[in-house]
């Protein structure tokens, strides 16, 4: 084999590798804000390498909801709930918290066992309407309402059951009306975090493919929301219980509710792994601009343990590193031992 041959082969390979792997040219100059965001992302990556996620249930494994750590997490939850309440109130919309967890038919997870009663009492304390669906969910057969044993999220029947539980809440707020409107120029392009006009099949790594469609505004729905609004707008903020992985759009609870409420626009901004601090930032940044008259927030006790700093660093929609508090740092070190 000649030298020419060797050189050609090296060229063939390197040309491909270079052209293939360097297709994202770096801008010559980046602004100070962009630089700060990049620095945050880098720091977040470093922190996530340093601090792995720990299972939520470990935080409550000694069945004590009054540990300093859990008390601190509850405090953060309350703080964010209060913030969301205030943000929603500023728009004149009505605000309902609904506790939905995947505890059908069996003992609830520790995070729900201790977290759900705390959410109920906190809502009461803050004067927020709260509907706790966990007792009625517990009465359901998990093999019917969820995809057990492959996954704990809703089955088609489960989504229909959930829709039947949410319908009375929407109905009872049919007169809700916000006081704020926005100019088109103020409105962001999206209200939710899904890729706009997404139309793809996902399987969550569980070999359970499902069809996800998002509208142009990044919400899990198949039509766009038009302005000025002609119908009551009901905004859903939620995590996977409302997003419903492993179900096609047409079978999820919010789509089923759309058929029951033709005179309301149901806006589904739910996304996997979202929690209350995500709802706060999403509402402030994007969702409030869809001019909701009623805001329904899905939560459960898992949202409290989600405030542990490693969870936030790994899952939050805001890519900003959270440093551990002294209590968290101490807990993390103990956990590692």
């Amino acid at each position: 084999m000649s030298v020419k041959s060797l050189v050609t082969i090296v060229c063939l390979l390197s040309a491909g590798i270079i052209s293939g792997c360097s297709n994202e040219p770096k801008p010559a100059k980046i602004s100070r804000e962009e630089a700060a965001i990049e620095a945050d992302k880098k720091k977040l990556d470093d922190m996530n390498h340093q601090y792995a996620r720990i299972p939520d249930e470990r935080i409550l494994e000694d069945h004590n909801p009054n540990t300093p750590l859990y008390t601190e997490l509850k405090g953060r939850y309350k703080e964010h709930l209060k913030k969301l309440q205030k943000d929603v109130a500023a728009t004149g919309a009505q605000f309902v918290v609904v506790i939905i967890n995947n505890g059908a038919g069996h003992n609830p997870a520790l995070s729900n066992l201790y977290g759900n009663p705390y959410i109920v009492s906190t809502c009461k304390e803050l004067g927020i309407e709260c509907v706790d669906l966990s007792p009625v969910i517990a009465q359901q057969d998990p093999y019917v309402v969820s995809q057990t044993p492959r996954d704990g999220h809703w089955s088609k029947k489960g989504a229909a059951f959930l829709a039947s539980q949410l319908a009375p809440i929407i109905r009872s707020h049919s007169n809700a009306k916000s006081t704020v409107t926005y100019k088109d120029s103020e409105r962001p392009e999206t209200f939710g975090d899904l890729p706009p006009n997404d139309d793809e099949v996902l399987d969550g790594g569980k070999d359970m493919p499902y069809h996800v469609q998002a509208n142009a505004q990044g919400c899990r729905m198949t039509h766009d929301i038009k302005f000025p609004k002609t119908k009551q707008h009901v905004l859903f903020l939620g995590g996977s219980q409302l997003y419903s992985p492993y179900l096609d759009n047409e079978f999820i609870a919010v789509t089923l509710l759309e058929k029951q409420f033709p005179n309301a626009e149901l806006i589904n901004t739910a996304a996997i792994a979202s929690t209350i601090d995500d709802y706060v930032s999403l509402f402030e940044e994007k969702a409030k601009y869809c001019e909701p008259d009623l805001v329904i927030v899905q939560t459960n006790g898992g949202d409290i343990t989600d405030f542990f700093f490693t969870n936030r660093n790994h899952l939050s929609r805001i890519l900003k590193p959270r440093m551990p508090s002294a209590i968290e740092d101490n807990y993390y070190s103990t956990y590692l031992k």
Partner: protein
Amino acid sequence: MLFNTTDFGIFFCIVLVIYWLAWKWRIVQHIILLVASGYFYYRFHYSLPIYLYCMISVGFAFGLIIDVQADATKRKTALTFGICILGLGLTYIKYSGLILGNIHGLDQWQASVLHILTPIGISYFTFSSIGYITDVYRRTIEPEKNFITYATYISYFPHILSGPIPSAAKILPQFRKNFVPTFEQIEQSLGEIVWGLFKKMVVADNVVLTVNYVFSHYQDLNGSSLFLGVTLFSLYLYADFSGYSEIAMGASRLLGIELTKNFRMPFFSRNPSEFWRRWHTSLRKWFLDYIYMPMGGKKVSTLKYIMLILFIFSFSGLWHGANYTFVCWGFLNGLYFVPYILTGKLTRYKEPASPGRILPTASDFLKILLTFNLVTITRVFFRSPNIYVAGDFFSKIFSKTLFDVPLHVVTTNLLYCMPMLIIEWIQREKDYVLEAKKLNIIIRILIFGLVIASICYFHKTRNNSEYYYFKF
């Protein structure tokens, strides 16, 4: 260790360098390949090489035993005995479920007591071993006297998982010769590897979720989406399996072994016979050499010939798995031959469709379309978990919703397959898809770069799925 992973890339580069450094010593090269293949196979499960080396020992021993028998009856007995032993593992592991599952009371026992790990690629190396001892019996080849050479041949990592099923007469002698690659061979190897990666990582990995979705949600979809979904599955299967085979061929050529070309652009075939001469050709050749020809081939009456075709195809279905769906798939594909045989129109095309033309002739186009759809529709059996689901799937396809608007996600995924089909159509008369000998070296480099760039850009890491044919 999948072919399209960094792990394999590193592994292969290391093996290649060490292998080339030892080019003067063939036996050292064999030892390198043997160790590398053992390691490659071990990476799937630590216990798998044990089974493999047992099979290799049995095959090697029977090769020698058959050869020393002077008496024809004894040779035949030794061959039969060898085939039985070699086939025992495959029959037991793959087919005991089908056999015992039908016997009341034994199905549970089989499931609980006899369940063991299925060695990946078992069908391939079992057929290779059976082919080898049969060739020795027929005196087509001399038996291999060196155990290391034989073990290297059977366990050779480019073909052990999903073929091509080697023909001993063609492949084994190559292990005995020294080899220095030419520039053309290296360019062809790289071309095949890059195109194989493109098919796997850009086409197959992107459409696999939609294919899975269509088959798991068929009850919720309309007929047109299901029809296009099966079409997508057909294209996916081709991209996945032929992509694998091309990487295997390219990698193997760099090691001096020219494997059997497993796919020759089958989707441009003009009748089922041509399709099967272009699809999984190594398996076809195996059936041809070891079943079809001994049973008479074409030298029998028309009725017997038809029966033989139906038997071979049903049997090849069974090779894919112990499920009646595979038998139906094979039978239906065999059935397609009947009208062609009866009307005498089973043309044996020697050249690709519409040679020298950019677009196919109308006649070729219609024939290609018919053949593609005939073969594609049988994939419902190939993919369905049982006959009832397949029946249900067919009834959903051929319903009044067949002409409804199909699901957008299915049609967009079909678009992912189009560049592959168009490029292969343009290059259908070449030895390999990226062949461009007449073009300047710079342009050839750019073409390679473009394909590699598209692999980097379009590949979805989260869909890094296993090759479909590993399960066979």
